[in-house]
């Protein structure tokens, strides 16, 4: 290959990638522009003047503010359940050898990529019967269980990295298994656990169908469902919809920038190494 050819391919690579990135940004254009428009139409003919009034308006809406609150409660609740249960289970999986261990780990792995949407319809009937339908707790419990398998799996792999001698030292130093987890494993695996909290939260915050199927009262809707029902309503103020969407997606996007470095590690532990 001649050097000119290499140069041309390189330039071509840059142009192609810039074009691709441009294509990826296009769908975002409207939400970011429309949110500052004084005219609430979806089209691009007339935005009116630049204004922050949509943002003021949505924050004055009682149900929007409530939906942020609900979204936070449900996302954090689900995250807390997954993380706490995963910490204890992962410790045992990482450090103990017992008869059913492999079977249980396989169970966890099996549910890691399960197409969970299809379980929500039997879940709906089940929730009606046990009075968990249309409750925050009900949503939290489902969000928590959906993330539990992958959380256990990643955390176990992170615990596996902690040297055996440190655990032994803790044992000799008189730490009970519980104290070992709290004083040794948690601080040492903290970076991974922080990323897991981030990832679980983002997943829960972005989940639409769980609260959509399992909730019916407007005052319990998280922001995902709030925005969807607002979008589907008859007289939509599109500038306010856009403003709400921006508010909804900003935290996720910011958190993702922190978490993206670890994403691959999270999903491909064991997989890439073989």
């Amino acid at each position, binding site marked *: 290959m001649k050097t000119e050819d290499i140069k041309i391919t390189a330039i071509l690579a840059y142009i192609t990638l810039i074009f691709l990135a441009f294509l990826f940004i296009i769908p975002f254009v409207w939400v970011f522009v429309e949110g500052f428009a004084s005219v609430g139409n979806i089209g691009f003919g007339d935005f009116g003047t630049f204004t922050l009034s949509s943002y003021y308006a949505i924050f004055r809406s009682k149900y929007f503010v409530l939906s942020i609150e609900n979204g936070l409660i449900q996302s954090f609740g689900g995250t807390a359940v997954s993380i706490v249960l995963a910490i204890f289970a992962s410790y045992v999986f990482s450090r103990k050898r017992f008869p059913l261990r492999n079977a249980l780990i396989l169970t966890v792995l099996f549910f890691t990529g399960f197409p969970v949407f299809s379980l929500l319809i039997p879940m709906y009937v089940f929730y009606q019967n046990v009075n968990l339908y249309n409750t925050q707790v009900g949503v939290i419990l489902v969000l928590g269980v959906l993330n539990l398998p992958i959380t256990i799996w990643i955390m176990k792999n992170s615990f596996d990295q902690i040297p055996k001698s*440190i655990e032994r030292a803790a044992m*000799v*130093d*008189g730490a009970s298994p519980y*104290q070992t987890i709290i*004083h*040794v494993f948690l*601080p*040492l695996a903290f970076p991974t656990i922080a990323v897991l909290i981030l990832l679980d939260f983002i997943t829960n915050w972005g989940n639409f169908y769980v609260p959509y199927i399992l909730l019916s009262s407007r005052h319990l809707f998280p922001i995902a469902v709030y925005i969807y029902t607002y979008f589907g309503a008859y007289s939509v103020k599109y500038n306010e919809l856009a403003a709400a969407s921006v508010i909804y997606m900003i935290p996720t996007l910011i958190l993702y920038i922190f978490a993206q470095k670890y994403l691959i590690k999270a999903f491909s532990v064991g997989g890439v190494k073989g």
Partner: protein
Amino acid sequence: MVSVKLVNINKKFSGTTVLKDMNLEVQDGEFFILLGASGSGKSTTLNIIAGLEKATSGDILFDDRIVNKMGPVQRGVAMVFQDYALYPHLTVRNNIAFPLKMRKASKEFIEKKVGEVSNVLGLEKYLDRYPRELSGGQAQRVSLGRALVRDPDIFLLDEPLSNLDAKIRSQIRVELKLIQENLGKTFIYVTHDQQEAMSLGDRIAILRHGKLEQVGSPMEVYKDPVNQYVAAFLGEPEINFFELTRNSNMYSSEEIILKGIEAEENEITAGIRPESIKLKKERDNDVEIKIKIQTFESFGSYSVIIGKARSGKEVRVRLAEIPEIKPSTEMAMYVPLDEIYLFGKDGNRIGKK
């Protein structure tokens, strides 16, 4: 103040036997060494004494009290690890304080204890550092401090010096010996390094393939090895072995001839330590060996000669003096008969046991 006794300890890992019928007694206040090559089961023995691993069968006694089912804390042991096993997220101060915190000791007590221990080990300057900011020697001192702070009855040390470089190793070796003498507590120390074993131990146990070969003071095991393995394991340079066959009333090989010894077997092995070989004949019955000098190394206070017998066999000689020798010359050397060890075909010393 505790003595340790292992009675018929067996340990199997998924079918393979790691320890076989181990019987061992460690006296109270003794610096006891478990010496062996890798895979000899020395670390497993230590872990079983610590309560980190369970024996497949057999009893562990601390002062005649069976402790088989106790964890490390109840046994009152402290442990120092080869890779130090410091908690990387804690400062030196908190690393040392950790065992006390686990027992919910009072703040004042912890502070006082940490102060004492860091004073003994010269760690005052490093108390607020993290393990990653320490040199290997400092890290090992912290690890030792974490053991000291608990006032345990027994200290277990698993190759604590093997990750350190040579200079610091000998320095900490001396410190360890002093600490043990001052405390007067039982130390059980695992190593594969015979020099460490010889210089530190009150007694040494030599392990091989999960079996105890010999227990005794450093001089006992060195001067009076029960078998070929122990003889070969200890000593630098390594002992010379010659295979002899009976020839009427003497035993001979291509290199040496032994007269006036008593053995039943027709084929025996003679072991001659390099330092038993002398330049001059001292007694009439000294055994002569002729070697051609190949290399000659002087270490100041002693010298080592590697030579070849006529048969081509390598012979190692260690001399207390620095003689003037030219390479490639052949010379006769002499070994006092009573310094030659004789081993039977099974490797055991003839005339012992």
